[in-house]
């Protein structure tokens, strides 16, 4: 397929629009919430309740659109970003989203946060044909254009991470015996499924221990011991930070030295590795797709500097070590690209069409080389990640950018 850059899109946009909107050449087509000067965009984030630490994502998004509007908006239209609190409670999400769609009349939903909350609104939005773009959750089910043509994910999903781990293991320890620690729910099983699919034929012989844990478990010690005693020499640790940390610590305690792969969910230095003991975490391998704002290697990176300048000016109270503040603006930048591609044809149908028409697009805070690609049959924008090894202090990226897409 032809490569398209931002500039070429801008020049080609009018031509493209003629193709899309056949009779209405150069005529403006607007969906709900769009005028000549404004585009209304809806969002839900937990500003209160148990998951309120994610609230900063919504604030960073609002700040980003403030900056964008100061710079003139998109194609001359300002973004009116309406973000409501759903307290991470699915019934509240349904209520707020209905308010956004029916009362505020937004064009689309951008990055509603959470797996249960997005599940609650998915059917409604698809029935109403309102784009549910770039949902802020890594579950695999958002990439299902056949059944849910109005819903699209954004971040690499857990299943494709599992694929990458499988590829890494096959390359580095082809005859390894794998033990997997996973959370006993969709999120954990997504990883397991990805790993198993990635291993293919070899899954039967290589996967020796599949050890689930419940979020209610006090520790995962017994799971770790069972892996060691089963003779596993590869450990895929997909726990949330609390359990990831316990597992790292226990592995060191019982002097088990497998090839330790830690999923992106548990790879926060502050939340998982420090509690586990940094020395215990040495040589663990993990994966990343965005630039870690605490990593000094990005200090002189233009993308980072641009982001830091934005944070200083528009969201000074925001925590610059919080990855949520990196992800939020990145959602916005992806949407802005979609809006630019849409030109003056801002109908909901065209939004989805252009959202499924992103080619090798990138945003400043994605790791170099990671590209956003979508197509009418591929609603998983980011599929690539890069591996990193922990050197006892921080994560060091290594190797090429890997794709989680394993065809066939």
């Amino acid at each position, binding site marked *: 397929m032809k490569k398209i850059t931002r500039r070429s899109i801008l020049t080609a946009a009018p031509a493209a629009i003629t193709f899309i909107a056949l009779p209405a050449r150069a005529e403006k087509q607007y969906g709900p919430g769009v005028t000549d000067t404004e585009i209304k965009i809806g969002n839900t984030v937990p*500003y*209160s*309740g*148990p998951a309120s630490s994610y609230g900063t994502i*919504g*604030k960073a998004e609002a700040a980003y659109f403030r900056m964008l509007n100061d710079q003139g908006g998109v194609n001359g239209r300002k973004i009116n970003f309406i*973000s*409501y*609190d759903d*307290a*991470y*409670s*699915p*019934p*509240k999400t*349904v*209520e707020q989203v*209905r*308010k956004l*769609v*029916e*009362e505020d009349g937004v064009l689309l939903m951008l990055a509603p946060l959470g*797996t*249960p909350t997005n*599940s*609650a609104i*998915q*059917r*409604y939005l698809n029935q109403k044909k309102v784009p549910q773009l770039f949902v802020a959750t890594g579950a695999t089910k958002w990439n299902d254009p056949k059944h849910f043509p109005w819903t699209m994910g954004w971040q690499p999903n857990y299943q494709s991470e599992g694929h990458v781990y499988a590829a890494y293991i096959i390359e580095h320890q082809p005859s390894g015996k794998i033990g997997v620690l996973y959370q*006993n*729910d*969709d*999120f954990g099983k997504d990883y397991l499924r990805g790993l198993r699919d990635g291993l293919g034929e070899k899954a039967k012989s290589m996967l020796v221990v599949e050890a689930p844990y*419940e979020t*209610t478990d006090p520790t995962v010690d017994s799971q770790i011991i069972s892996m060691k005693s089963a003779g596993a020499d590869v450990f895929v640790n997909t726990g949330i930070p609390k359990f990831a940390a316990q597992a790292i610590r226990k592995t060191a305690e019982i002097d088990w030295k497998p090839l330790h792969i830690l999923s992106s969910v548990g790879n926060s230095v502050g939340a998982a590795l420090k509690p586990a003991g940094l020395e215990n975490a040495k040589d663990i391998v993990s994966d990343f797709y965005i630039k870690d704002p605490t990593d000094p290697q990005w200090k002189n990176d233009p993308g980072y500097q641009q982001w830091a300048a934005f944070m200083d000016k528009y969201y000074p109270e925001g925590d610059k070590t919080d990855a949520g503040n990196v992800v939020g603006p990145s959602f916005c930048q992806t949407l802005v690209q979609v809006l630019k591609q849409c030109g003056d044809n801002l109908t909901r149908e065209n939004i989805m069409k252009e959202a499924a028409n992103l080619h090798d697009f990138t945003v400043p805070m994605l790791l170099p080389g990671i590209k956003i690609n979508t197509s009418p049959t591929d609603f998983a924008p980011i599929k690539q990640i890069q591996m990193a090894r922990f050197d006892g202090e921080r994560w060091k990226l290594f190797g090429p950018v890997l794709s989680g897409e394993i065809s066939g």
Partner: protein
Amino acid sequence: MTGPPRDTVAFAGASPRTLVIAKPSTRHLLIAAMLVMALVIPFVLKSFFVFQLTLVMVYGLAILGLNLLTGFNGQFSLGHSAFYGIGAYTAAILMEQLDLAYYWTLPCAGAVCFLVGFLFGLPALRLQGLYLALATFALATAMPQILKFQPLEPLTGGVQGIVIMKPDPPPGVPLNADQWLYFFTLAVLLVMFAGATSLVKSRTGRAIMAIRDHPIAAATMGINTALYKTLTFGVSALYTGVAGALGAIAIQFVAPDSFTFLLSVSLLVGLVVGGVGSIPGSLFGGVFVLFVPNIAERVSTGLAGAIYGVILLLVIYVMPSGAAGFVRFAAARLEAKGKPR
């Protein structure tokens, strides 16, 4: 009896009696006016608002359930989110697995919750006041985890929850889905409220309140306190369970995260704000639970929680005996003014 229930007695003591004494004509007129309004609203307002009002009725019904237990029987519960959740899941599972029509799920949800409530009421008999609050709190914290429990997953859908279809109006009825659901909920609500009113006014109701006011005296008068207390627990759970089933149908989705302890607290807030021991007050509680967080958020997104707190404090300060108490007070004031001195 220990401390807290006595407070509720103070709030609620006069309620049913004064309500009976208050001018029946004005009261009936008011109810009729409200009914007419309730019938007209869905044709005038946007369907989103109609949906919100449906939720108000759902929460109002759930609060009524809690009110029967706390307001009329003096037993505390922080576990009503669990009954609400059981009702919601019963409806969702019956619709999803057995393809049962949505209206049949309500009696089923009610029956299941009555049974669970009754059984839970048995050990609760030994507990009073704060201790009962703690025991029911345990139920509320356990519920989301039970719903996620692995062996139950084929039934409950685990963390994913269950998505259900919104009921369409019966063929030939010129209403949209939101309006239909509104009227359906309204009908259920009226039946349930009428049931609660006649229960409270009956011999049984007097026994229930006698237990609240003075358990020993009630027992001396020959009231089987144990039986009445457990039955009240069951009926209370039934009301909240039916509300849960209606809520599930309106939201079209159930997940364990929808029925956390926070929901119990919301119901309790609605109960106190609406008026402990007032049946119509429960509906006001529903209004508060649904709309005040939205108002708070409109004022400031960042401080929504704090503003909600301030509003709550103001409401409690202005209306110490809840909305129902406030209305009674205002009515009494007006009446006193109208009379010649």
